[in-house]
């Protein structure tokens, strides 16, 4: 568990995916092979902006045990500006979320392995505030 989450730190902390140099497509989570270019593809790390829109969402009222503290909460598929869609929690009230809502990334605690284990951090999204 510790090692598996450690390996994904760059993705989860910094929204770093991959970009195919051959076709320009961006992937998140990152891939080792471009499914379009196959062997002609060449992948490089690519930092996503962390801005996007809610593509679809659902409100979770009956959460798994470790997320009881935050229920009810909003889980959404966010379409990032660069194209990839990711599943993530949105930090807003269930009645506030809507399809097309502009959101931006925030760094949060995702879960912890009990009282003695590791704390897992990563991305969530929040509504973009009017500046």
């Amino acid at each position, binding site marked *: 568990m510790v090692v598996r989450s450690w390996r994904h730190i760059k993705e989860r*902390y*910094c929204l770093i995916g991959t970009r195919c140099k051959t076709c320009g497509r961006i992937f998140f989570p990152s891939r080792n092979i471009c499914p379009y270019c196959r062997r002609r593809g060449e992948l490089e790390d690519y930092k996503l902006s962390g801005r996007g829109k809610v593509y679809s969402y659902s409100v979770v009222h009956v959460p798994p045990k470790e997320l*009881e503290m935050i229920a009810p909460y909003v889980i959404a598929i966010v379409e990032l500006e660069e194209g990839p869609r990711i599943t993530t929690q949105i930090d807003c009230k269930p009645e506030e979320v809507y399809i097309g809502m502009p959101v931006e990334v925030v760094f949060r605690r995702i879960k912890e392995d009990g009282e003695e284990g590791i704390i897992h951090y990563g991305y969530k999204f929040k509504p973009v505030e009017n500046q």
Partner: protein
Amino acid sequence: MKVGIVGYGSYIPKYRIKVEEIARVWGKDPEPIKRGLMVYEKSVPGPDEDTATISVEAGKNALKRGGIDPRDIGALYIGSESHPYAVKPTSTIVAEALELTPDLTCADLEFACKAGTAGIQICMGLVGSGMIKYGMAIGADTAQGAPGDALEYTAAAGGACYIIGSKRKEIIGEINDTYSFTTDTPDFWRREGRPYPKHGGRFTGEPAYFRHVINAAKGIMERIGTTPEDYDYCVFHQPNGKFYIRVAKYLGFKEEQYRDGLLTPYLGNTYSGAVPLGLSNILDRGKEGDRILAVSYGSGAGSDAFDITLTERIEEVKDRAPKTMDLLRRKEYIDYSVYLKYRRCIRV
């Protein structure tokens, strides 16, 4: 070498609880508490927020304002008394999330409420000596008071980040000098393994907060040869509104000088975040040539004083990230039971 602030950013969680709500649960009259502390509400971290997440958000804002490549930051210090782990640094989590890794040195600092300003001083030394190009210092806390304790009305969450550099054209606030006043004074402590801190009651005032803040402020002004009239703004540690105003007035500062540094009445005491956040609100409002006196206080006890002059670059950077007052105004009130749940006082 001249060193100064080249970037700053702040973060305040959105939840608030009112003093009335806490007093209601404990059967207390809120009016004397509000009058006595000059605190009306306080920030509460969300259940998925802690010192690491607050530091990352403040750090992102500081990087936006500084316009600096994160890989050029050679040191990161996080001052807090609520590090998420007892053993395992917060600073490595934050460094990774801000993409400062791996070419830097990191450490978590602890000195009650002044660990954030201690980090600024360390960065000044490293940058000033040429050992690193930029240093980042963060003061952040998710302070807890025991339920029913007087601290519960004020213990709050928030933090601010400062990037220290030495390139003349990048500096937004030149740090003219820093001076610290430190003694062994047991006014507030927490033993290993205990969840909540203890405090020395009345002992927290005169020999602790007032003695150290006053001596650090007087010490730095004596060293540079300034008087309160030379400053446009001042900011002091603010465990509550009353101590802050008393110390400001005692030192001879006027309301227009101390007003903008005081956030505690609607924020609560953010411990290591307090002076960093108060100073960020001053920078948000400041203009070229403004001179600032900032004095932190950490129980145990010590005070760090800074004399800062803003440059023309402040105008250029202040709007690049959310301002502290906007973060303070963005709020969602919660009741005491949700507060207990978020503060993990209810176990599931």
